[in-house]
């Protein structure tokens, strides 16, 4: 889709994902490194695959001049600071059409521009860690580097938005992305709950608290785990009850008029009584049977896949989600997430 775009990627860690996504969309991304990448090998593969690598001594005047020469005809530059290794004005002088994307832990114009940060500390400050995990243990982060990933993806949105503006004005601009703010934006419940209901959320394990009540999200089944919840969607509720009936389960769920029942307003004790019935039903069936019935009948259940299940997923294989690469160090064939979506052109990310 974006094979006409040229990108220089100067990011280190945070911001790598912006270039990775642009490369996956077809852009020609040149990763300029001061020295060989020091990132963990798995992280380096995950975030920097599909980029052309170039090493420059960016601490020297000649290296910076080489960089500016390279930037003279690119569309996008990605980096972590407004003034390093060259300042924005120098880039703009050399290429007034360049979209200069700075992905930083905090807003570079804000009071914490120089504050040290990692993905973990940003997740903590964003409030996300406060609600991840169990009530009897410490807060948790999410797996991977999610504040960095969110910021990287917002970097692509910002770059493409600025390119659209450039088509009208003829000029590029500086766009800055705060990873902290990206993580806060992902925390879409907690700050708004405080603002409008003065309620402070806590870790609730696998219980999803809504309104006056809460619903369980993770269930053990005969051979693993599935996810399903009581939701305010009468069609889904009726569908599950019907499948349970067909499997010989008659219960008080049969008599509930779901269209006039708001789960969020139902007392937790009531929901718990309903959940005990569902728990018993799920425990007697396999992940595959439950998931198949859900696809066929639409009651919103999914099996919980482990990392190997996902790598072997027939759904992802049929949609050509994975690309296979060869790890240059070990020679191993590795599956990595490939194109971002399927298009009506000729497949994934096609035209």
């Amino acid at each position, binding site marked *: *889709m974006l094979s006409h775009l040229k990108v220089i990627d100067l990011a280190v860690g945070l911001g790598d994902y912006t270039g990775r996504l642009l490369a996956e969309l077809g852009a020609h991304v040149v990763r300029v490194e001061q020295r060989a990448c020091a990132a963990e090998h798995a992280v380096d593969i995950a975030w920097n695959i599909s980029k052309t690598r170039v090493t420059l001594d960016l601490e020297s005047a000649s290296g910076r001049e080489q960089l500016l020469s390279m930037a003279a005809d690119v569309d996008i530059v990605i980096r972590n600071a407004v003034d390093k290794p060259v300042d924005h004005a120098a880039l703009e002088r050399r290429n007034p059409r360049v979209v200069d994307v700075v992905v930083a832990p*905090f*807003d570079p114009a804000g009071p*914490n521009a120089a504050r*040290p*940060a990692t993905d973990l500390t*940003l997740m903590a*400050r964003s*409030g996300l*860690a*406060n609600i*991840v995990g*169990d009530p009897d243990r*410490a807060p*948790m*982060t999410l*797996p991977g580097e999610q504040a960095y*990933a*969110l910021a990287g*993806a917002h970097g692509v*949105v*910002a770059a*493409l*938005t600025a390119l*659209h*503006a450039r088509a*009208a004005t003829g*000029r590029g601009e500086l*766009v*800055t992305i705060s990873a902290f703010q990206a993580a*806060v934006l*992902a925390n879409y419940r907690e*700050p708004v709950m405080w603002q409008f*209901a003065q*309620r402070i959320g806590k870790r*609730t*394990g*696998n219980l*999803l608290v*809504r309104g006056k009540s809460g619903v369980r*999200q993770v269930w053990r089944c005969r051979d693993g785990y599935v*996810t399903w919840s009581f939701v305010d*969607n009468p069609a889904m509720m009726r569908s599950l009850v019907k499948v349970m009936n067909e499997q010989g389960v008659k219960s008080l769920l049969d008599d509930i008029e779901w269209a006039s029942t708001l789960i969020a307003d139902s007392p937790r004790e009531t929901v718990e009584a309903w959940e005990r019935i569902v728990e018993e039903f799920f425990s007697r069936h396999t992940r595959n049977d439950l998931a198949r019935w859900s696809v*066929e009948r639409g*009651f*919103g*259940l999914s099996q919980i*896949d482990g990392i*190997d299940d996902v*790598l072997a*997923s027939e759904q*992802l294989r*049929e*949609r050509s*989600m994975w690309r296979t690469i060869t790890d240059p160090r070990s020679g191993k064939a590795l599956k990595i*997430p490939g194109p971002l*979506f*399927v*298009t*009506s052109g000729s497949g994934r990310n096609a035209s």
Partner: protein
Amino acid sequence: MKPLAGVRIADFSWVGAGPRATKDLADYGATVIKVESRQRLDLGRVSPPFKNGVQHPDGSAFFAISNTSKRSVTINLADPRGVAVAKRLIEWSDVVVENFGKGYMERIGLSYETLQGIRPGIIQVSVSVAGRTGPNANLRGYGNSAAALSGLAALSGWPDRPPHMPPFAYGDVVAPIFATIAVLAAIEHRRQTGHGQHVDVSQVEPLVHVLADRFVERQLTGEARKPGNRASGIAPHGIYPCRGDDKWCAIAVRSDAEWSRLCEAMNSPGSASDPRFSSMASRKANEDELDRVVAAWSLDRDKHELAELLASQGVPAEAVQNGREVFTDPELAAVGHYIRTPHAVLGECEMPGPPVRFSSSEVAMGPSPLLGEHNREVFVDLLGLSEQEVADLVTAGALS
């Protein structure tokens, strides 16, 4: 000038995954017309919290933060006369966004082929749990289904406990950003080629994408355990107890130099040369004991003071904040993250803006729309229906 000024979007999406995608586009200046129906309310409109705790279609703060800067019209898509009006809206549009179940758009006569006939070059972005092809194409579900099928749930939580689903749907966060990218990339592509396209965004695949490092590590090293709060090549890397009930501070030490500074802050310079901890490799090898040492020190300290102390020494550290602390975070106030936005039902509210600052383009966020607030403006002024036609269609239930 707003950067996406002139981009026209007919937004048929609802709940979380679609509306958040078009929210960003609207905040950046696209004209986004949200198609809703009183016959089947957007579930976002019935999601708490509500103004004064009273459920009202225009009183959901959850809906409000997901739909800023949009316009709303009511069209009953179950009525062919409503679909006819929808087609006039599509004729006006550059982009159609929807997240109905597979086949719904086709059933009501709005297949992509039909859309192309109405407006050549049109872009359609469809968001669904597992995508519109493959054996799970008909899967119905929410963001938690995406967490389950992507490995996120299995990788989340403590290594000694079952899969974890935190109380927010991360699939409803990441997929909308991918959908926004899809819209913008397709517009950029059309500018080059003149061709539109139908983009099929799955909620599962974006989550797999943002977990790419975990999948690569599994294949390289065989490591399949949940990481908990730990990270390769960084130690300490954890969330440590502080003074008070449920008070915590995250600390991450990326180098031996940062470890030395942490030891100075702990007033324990000997720990820096302690052979159990003196190198990253030894700290990783003795991580349980390392965490006990740090936790014993952090336990009596205020979480914010601890974070400030360490950050001032160049060691990444932040207090774990709750919703109130995030809403009142001084960094967010200083950079204008929350934008005061008047809303007819919610009153003056602070809506979170995009995490992006443009040097030239303008981001001006407006309120979320009331249900059908822009019916007259869109049906009469924009699409050219007469007042009488609109009144008749409203009475007939086609525009409701």
